[in-house]
C-alpha cells in the first residue's frame, strides 16, 4: 500500500461508485480487482456479561462441529467466519481497586490492572483509569497507515465519562471518549464537504502556520513546568502532532468515496432510538473502513453498568444492568435478558453483512477485517471476570481461520490481545502487563 496514494487505492477498490445512501454499497462494481487491500481492525463492546451456557460451544467441545447457542443464533450465516473461545480469563481485572465492572473495563483492552485514582484518602484506594495503551491504539500506531484518521472511536449511548464507560486508551490514564452522535461522527469521518477548494487550501496553510507557533509554545513551556505538568502537556502535544499529520486529509476528503448525506439528527441519549443509533453508527463505521478513512475502529454499545431499557422492544421495566443481575431461576427476567443479548447478536450479524457487501478484489471488506467482539464480564449476576465471551470474526486478510472453537483451561486474555498483533501483521511477543501474558493463544494463529 505504501506506494499507492489513497486516492488511487480508492479508485482501484472500486469505491468511486460508492453512492448514496450509505447502505447502497455497490455489488460487483469493481473497476479494478487487483489488490492488495489493507487489513482493518474493528473492536465491538457489549456490556454486563452474557450467558455462556446459551451462547455457543461449551468448554471441552471440539474445535469444529459445534453448534451456536440461541444467543448467537443470528450469526448462523457467518458461522464459518467466527472463532469462539472458552476459558479465556480477564486475569488483570482480578486485581486492583474498584469493582468488577470498572476493573473489567480498564483491563479489557489494555491487559493491565486498573490504576488508582488520584484520590488517596486516608487508608482508602479509589479506582482510577486504565493503566496503559489499549490494543487497538497500539495496533493503529504500529500500522502507521497514514489514513485521514489514525483510528475512529464510536459509541452508542455511552453516557458517563467514568472508568466503567471507557475501554480505549492512548496511554495510562488517557481514556479516549467515543463519539455518540452519528451526525458528528459523519463530520469526523468525511471532514468538510463541498467547500471552495481555494478557500480550503488557504485554510490549510493558515492551520499549518498556526500549529507551528503553538508547538513552539509547548516546547518553551515544557522546560519551565513541573515534571507532572510536563507529562500532561506532552500528551497534548502528541495529539496536536496527530492533528497536524491529517490536516491535509481534512481539506481533501475522500471525494471518490462519496459520503452522501449526513445521518438524520437523533438524540444520542434516546432509549427509544437506541436501535436506530446502533444501525447508523454501524453504517458509518463500515463506510469509514470501506473508504479507508481509517484502519482501526471501535464501536462501544453503551457502558458497563448501563441505565438503558430496550423500550423499542417493549422491555420497559428493567434497565440492562439490572436484567443482567436477574436471578437464574427468574424465568421472566432471564427471558428478557436473553432477548437483549440476542438482539446484540443481530446487530453484529448486520455489521458482518455490511462488511461482506463491500467488494474488495476477489473478496470483500469482511475478508480483510478482523472483528473483535468482547464484554467486560462473563456473567452479570456473578460479576465473573473469567471465561469472557470473546468472539473473533472476519478474515484479517486471510490470517484468521474461521469456523472454529478454542477451549482453554484458563489462559489470560492478554494472550488473545497479543494474538491480535499477529493476526494484523504486526506481531509482538507480549502485550499489556507481561505478568499476564504468555504469548499468542495456542492454536489460534
Amino acid at each position, binding site marked *: 500500500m505504501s506506494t499507492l496514494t489513497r486516492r488511487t487505492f480508492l479508485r482501484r477498490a472500486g469505491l468511486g461508485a460508492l453512492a448514496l445512501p450509505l447502505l447502497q454499497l455497490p455489488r460487483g462494481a469493481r473497476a479494478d480487482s487487483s489488490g492488495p487491500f489493507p487489513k482493518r481492525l474493528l473492536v465491538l463492546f457489549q456490556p454486563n456479561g452474557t450467558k455462556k451456557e446459551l451462547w455457543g460451544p461449551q468448554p471441552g467441545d471440539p474445535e469444529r462441529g459445534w453448534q451456536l447457542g440461541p444467543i448467537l443464533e443470528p450469526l448462523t450465516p457467518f458461522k464459518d467466519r467466527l472463532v469462539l473461545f472458552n476459558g479465556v480469563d480477564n486475569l488483570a481485572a482480578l486485581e486492583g481497586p474498584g469493582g468488577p465492572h470498572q476493573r473489567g473495563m480498564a483491563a479489557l483492552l489494555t491487559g493491565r490492572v486498573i490504576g488508582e485514582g488520584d*484520590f488517596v484518602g486516608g487508608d482508602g484506594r479509589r479506582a482510577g483509569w486504565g493503566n496503559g495503551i489499549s490494543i487497538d491504539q497500539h495496533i493503529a500506531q504500529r500500522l502507521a497507515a497514514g489514513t485521514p484518521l489514525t483510528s475512529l472511536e464510536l459509541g452508542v449511548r455511552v453516557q458517563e465519562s467514568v472508568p466503567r464507560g471507557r475501554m480505549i486508551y492512548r496511554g495510562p*490514564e488517557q481514556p479516549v471518549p467515543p463519539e455518540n452522535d452519528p451526525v458528528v461522527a459523519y463530520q469526523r469521518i468525511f471532514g468538510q464537504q463541498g467547500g471552495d477548494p481555494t478557500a480550503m487550501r488557504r485554510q490549510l496553510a493558515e492551520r499549518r502556520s498556526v500549529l507551528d507557533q503553538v508547538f513552539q509554545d509547548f516546547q518553551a513551556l515544557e522546560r519551565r513546568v*513541573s515534571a507532572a505538568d510536563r507529562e500532561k502537556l506532552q500528551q497534548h502535544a502528541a495529539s496536536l502532532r496527530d492533528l497536524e499529520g491529517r490536516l491535509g486529509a481534512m481539506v481533501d476528503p475522500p471525494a471518490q468515496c462519496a459520503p452522501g448525506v449526513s445521518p438524520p439528527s437523533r438524540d444520542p441519549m434516546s432509549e427509544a432510538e437506541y436501535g436506530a443509533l446502533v444501525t447508523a453508527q454501524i453504517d458509518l463505521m463500515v463506510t469509514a473502513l470501506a473508504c479507508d478513512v481509517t484502519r482501526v475502529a471501535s464501536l462501544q454499545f453503551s457502558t458497563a453498568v448501563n441505565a438503558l431499557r430496550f423500550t423499542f422492544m417493549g422491555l420497559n421495566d428493567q434497565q440492562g444492568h439490572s436484567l443482567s443481575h436477574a436471578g437464574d431461576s427468574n424465568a421472566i427476567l432471564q427471558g428478557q435478558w436473553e432477548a437483549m443479548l440476542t438482539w446484540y447478536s443481530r446487530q453484529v450479524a448486520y455489521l458482518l453483512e455490511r462488511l461482506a457487501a463491500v467488494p474488495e478484489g476477489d473478496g470483500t471488506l469482511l475478508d480483510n477485517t478482523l472483528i473483535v467482539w468482547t464484554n467486560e464480564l462473563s456473567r452479570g449476576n456473578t460479576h465473573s471476570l473469567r471465561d469472557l465471551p470473546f468472539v473473533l470474526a472476519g478474515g484479517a486478510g486471510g490470517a484468521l481461520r474461521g469456523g472454529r472453537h478454542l477451549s482453554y483451561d484458563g489462559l489470560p486474555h492478554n494472550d488473545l490481545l497479543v494474538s491480535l498483533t499477529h493476526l494484523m501483521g504486526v506481531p509482538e511477543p507480549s502485550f499489556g502487563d507481561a505478568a499476564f501474558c504468555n504469548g499468542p493463544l495456542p492454536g489460534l494463529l
Partner: protein
Amino acid sequence: MSLAHHLRTLGVALSVAPALGGLMGCEEGPPPANMAPAPPVVGGTTAPPPDVTEPPEVVTPPPPPPECPADAPLDPGPTLVRRLNRTEYDHTVRDLLGEDLGLALGAFTPEEEMLGFDNNARALQVTPVHAEQFMTGAEAVAGHVAADFAAFLPCDPAEIGEDACAAAFIHTFGRRAWRRPLTAAEQARLMALYAEGEALEGPAFETGLSLVVQALLQSPHFLYRVEVGTPVEGDATLRALTADELASRLSYLLWASMPDAALFDAADRGELSTPEGIAAQSARLLADPRARDGLWRFFVQWLAIEDVPSLVRDARYYPDVTPEQLAALVGETRAFVEFVVFEARDMRALFDAPYSFRNAALASLYGEDVGAGLGDALVKVPVDPQVRRGVLTHGSILAATAKPNMTSPVHRGKFIREHIFCETLPPPPAGVPIVAPDPDPALTTRERWAIHSSEPSCRGCHQLIDPPGFLFEGYDAVGKARSVENGHPIDATGRLIGTGELDGDYADGVALARALATSETAHRCLTTQFFRYAFGRGETSVDACTLDDLYTGYAEAGAYDFNALVGALTAHPAFRHRRAQGFEEVAP
C-alpha cells in the same frame, strides 16, 4: 478488630465506585437463601474470615491529625496543571470577547469526570479529537474578532501603521488571552506569525492578526491555567504563585472564567501578595453576578442533579411528568442554593430550611396547594416543615436518586453516605453471586429491600446504605410527598450506623435534615467537596490540616457562611503555593 482495620493493616484498601455496580444488583431483593457465605475479602493472610454481617467500614476523608500546629510546614499537595473545561472555555471566550459564542458546551467532547466533578485536572486530557475542537474553536474566535477588528484594536493602523498597531494588539489582547503579560520573546514570535499573513492572499494585516488570534487560543497558555510560580526564599519545597496565576485561581474558582480588568489591575498593583488583598478581591468576585453561575457549577455537581432535566420517568407510573417540570426541579434547587449562599448566608439552612422555591410547574408536580398567582417565575415560599426541610427533600435530588418507575432507597442511601458524609463505600465481597428475586407487587419498596437486607451476605453493606435511603421513602421518584405505596402505609423510619455522631434512629428525612444542619460530619464533608472542586483534585492525607483549617474558618469562625468558606480557602497558604517538587529539572 474490624474488617476495615484488617484491610488497613494489610495495606488493602476499599474503593468507591464499585459499590454502585454491586449494590445495584443486590438492590432488587435478597439472594437465594442457600447462598454460600462470603469468602474472605483478603486471601493468603492470617486474617480471620471477616463476619460479613458486621458493618463493613467505610473510608472517610483523612481526619484532622491530633494537632495541626500553626508552625507546621505547609504542603499544598500534588497540584497538576489544569485545562479549561467546556464551561470555563465558554465563559473565558465570553469575557475575552464580550460576547458569548457558546463554542464548547454542546460541541466539544464532554469532560471525563472524577469524584463527580468535571474540572479534575487529572481527568482533563487532550485526545486528537479535542485538539481538533480547540483548533476549530480558535478559528471561530478569530473569525469573530476579524468581523469587527476595530472593536478589538487598541489603535488605528492608518494612524500609527499596521505593524505598530499589530504589535499593540498582540500586547493587549495577548495579555488578556493568556491572563499574563507576554514575554518579549513571545511577543516577537507572534509578530513573526503576524508577518506570515503577507504570504497569504487577502489583506495582510487582518490575515496576520487572525493567525495570531488562532495561535493565542490554541496555546497552552490559553487552554491551561499554567502555574510556574517563583521560588520561595527559605523554603525549597514550595513555589509561590505569581500575582497573575493567583488572579486566575480566584476567577476560575468563583466565576469559572478569566479575571476581569479590575482583578488584573489588582494583580499588577501587587495587591494579591497579601491575604487581605486576596480577601478583598475574593469578596468582590463573590458579589458579582458571575459568581452565581460559577459557584453553581460546584453545587450542581456536588448534588449530582445536572442530568435531572433529561431523566426518563416511566409514563405508566408518572404519566403527567413533563421535561419542563424536571427542569423546574433543578431551577428550584438553584434558586434555593443561591438564596442560602448569598442571602441567608448560613449553610445550616441548606439542610433544614423550612422554605423553598415554587413556580406553577413545581406546585403541579409536587401536588401542592400553594395558592394562586404562581407563574413561571420561582417564588420563595414556606414549606410544611413536617413534610420537607432543606435540599435533601428537593425533588431534584429525590428524582436523580430514583429509578424510572420507583424509588431507590439504595441510590438515595448511597448518595447520602458518599455525597453528604463523604464516605467511600466498599465494593461487594468478591465471588458472591448478586442476584435478584421476583419482585412482589404486594409489598412496598421498603419491604422488598428489608427482606434483602436480612441476608447476611448483603446485610453488611446494606445496613449502612439502605436506612438513610428509607428515610426518604415518603417521597416518590419525582419527589412528590406520599404516605402510602401499593396501598400500604409508608414507613420512613431508619437507624443510621457507622457514621459516628449521626448514629441513631430517625423518624424520616426531615428528622435527618434537622440533624445534618449542625452536623460536623456534614459540614466537614461540604468543606471537602468544595476543596475537590476548588483544587481540581481529590484530597490526600497531606491535605488534612488544610481541610481542618477550612472547616474551622467556615463553620466555627464563619458561622456556616459559605462566603467564609470561600474566604478561608482563598486566604489559605495552600491556595497560594505549589509544591516545588518536579521543578528541579528546569533548564536554566
